[in-house]
């Protein structure tokens, strides 16, 4: 330890550098190179139909994104999703963790129950909730609402509320997971602080606001950032619950990328194959289906 500390910071021994190389090579090959390549191609007219006739087009592709309503919808939905899910998940996970940090008999059981949804793939969650949300007479939630005398809510079929219905399932799924992270952080807080505060006459709310919250900062940072990141790239739950519908009402940035990129690419790959077979250079969009 001492020897390392005595060295100048920032100098890398050749032996250590060598050990870093394999990981660095993989990282550059599978992340840096494709990312930089994608960035470069975003300023060109590259298309999968004409992959060899590439010329520079400046900002054209970027401008076209904002001209199409569907992309604007996608960006708006993604931001809505990321912000609301980040706020709700954290706002619910912290009090839940604080409550389940207290000593009572069913504590362990309740912790498992709240954590459980995080175990399932969002695809399964989507399948499950699409039944719960259903407007059919067999839809559980709407049945409950009907029993309460409230009318049917078309959770996934009403384009004004579908995105919020999607967010709700993800809040339900991920509150427990984030609660566990908050719990771990809570357990690292020295109980003596609370004792001291109590002696000084602080109530439970004051303790929570003045001790718990500030000392939870590391977990808050972690949870906020991770939930926000996964929110900005949300795709799986949208795909399984609504496929971006009804219409394009719940499309997100990634769901559009998948649709515009992959799905068409697959088609065009087939197309390109045909071109290669024909070798006559003409553009034939024909193929028997």
């Amino acid at each position, binding site marked *: 330890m001492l020897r390392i500390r005595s060295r100048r910071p920032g100098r890398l021994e050749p032996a250590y550098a060598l050990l870093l190389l394999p990981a660095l090579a993989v990282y550059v090959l599978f992340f840096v190179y494709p990312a930089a390549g994608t960035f470069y191609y975003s300023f060109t007219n590259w298309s999968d139909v004409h992959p060899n006739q590439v010329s520079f087009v400046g900002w054209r592709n970027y401008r076209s994104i904002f001209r199409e309503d569907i992309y604007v919808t996608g960006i708006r939905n993604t931001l809505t999703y990321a912000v609301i899910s980040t706020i709700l998940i954290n706002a619910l996970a912290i009090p839940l963790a604080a409550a389940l940090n207290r000593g009572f008999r069913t504590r362990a059981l309740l912790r498992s129950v709240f954590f459980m949804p995080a175990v399932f793939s969002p695809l399964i969650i989507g399948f499950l909730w699409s039944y719960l949300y259903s407007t059919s*007479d067999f839809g559980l939630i709407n049945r409950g609402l009907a029993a309460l005398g409230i009318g049917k809510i078309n959770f996934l079929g009403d384009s004004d509320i579908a995105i919020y219905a999607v967010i709700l399932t993800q809040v339900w799924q991920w509150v427990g997971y984030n609660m566990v992270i908050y719990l771990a952080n809570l357990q690292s807080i020295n109980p003596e602080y609370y004792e001291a505060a109590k002696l000084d006459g602080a109530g439970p709310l004051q303790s929570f606001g003045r001790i718990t919250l500030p000392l939870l900062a590391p977990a808050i940072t972690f949870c906020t950032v991770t939930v926000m990141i996964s929110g900005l790239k949300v795709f799986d739950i949208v795909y399984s619950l609504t496929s971006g519908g009804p219409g394009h009402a719940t499309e997100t940035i990634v769901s559009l990328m998948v*649709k515009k990129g992959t799905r*068409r690419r697959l088609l065009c790959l087939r197309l390109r194959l045909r071109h290669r077979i*024909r070798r006559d250079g003409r553009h034939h969009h*024909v*193929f028997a289906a």
Partner: protein
Amino acid sequence: MTFDGKLYGLPQASWFNGIYYNVDLFKKYNLQIPKTLDEYFAVAKTFQDNGIKPQAIGLKNANVAMQSFIALALNDYIGMPEGKGFDEAFRTGSASMKEALLPALNTWTEYLKRGIFTKDMLGLEEEQAIDEFTSGKAAMFQTGPWYMDTFKQKNPAMNIGMFPNLGTKGGPGWMVGGPGVAFGINAKSTAKEAAFQVLELLSTPEGQEAYWNDNKGGSSFLKGVEFEMPAEYRDAQEAFKQGNVYFPPNGWGALRNPIIDELGKMIQAVVGGQETPEQALASVDKKAAALRSK
């Protein structure tokens, strides 16, 4: 499936969809099988008056929404002499959906105006729509023979028939459908011999029958092999006899899949009231143009 005059694949059997109906419910209310869309709407009215959903439909699935519209478009335009060249013209860009299919889509909105299809159904999965059909809450359901086993499992006592998809002008009606999957063999496959044997076997009348047993209702492409259509499809006989089985997107070339998706989504938007029929088809045309110019 041919390419440069060479045969690359031969479909095993055809697929189609039409309108399944609950025979007992039709009997109970003394209803005749509709032959035109107007007759269909009259039948629907009777069911509505008796608290039964005329037709279950899982509009949450964009493809389902597309199938319903394309069935009407097929009857009223694409399957008529004047619409014969539409698919080819749409593929190359010399015809637009808005010009050709707007009347059909306007007619299709009658389903909405009459409350047969509702916004609620945008929140319904196909499986849930099937539940409504097999439990007798709904009297009709558009799909193909692949769901027959599901119907029978869910309600073994149910009597089911099928009539073709209808249009405003009458006639034998149309089944939405076409050739099913074709098998191809990888030229570099290590199991090529075995694969050829499977193909050979499938190409015998016995093989066709075994294949057909799992997909009852389709017809064979093997000469001389004709299956007796199950009784359920009696009311659709005339459409089959006329060869009225067609899936327009099969003529759209590379536009097929993305446009199927966009058309379905836009039909959903029409149901939800976010787009007028005109806007919806214009949006599909715009997407088609973008795909053609790639």
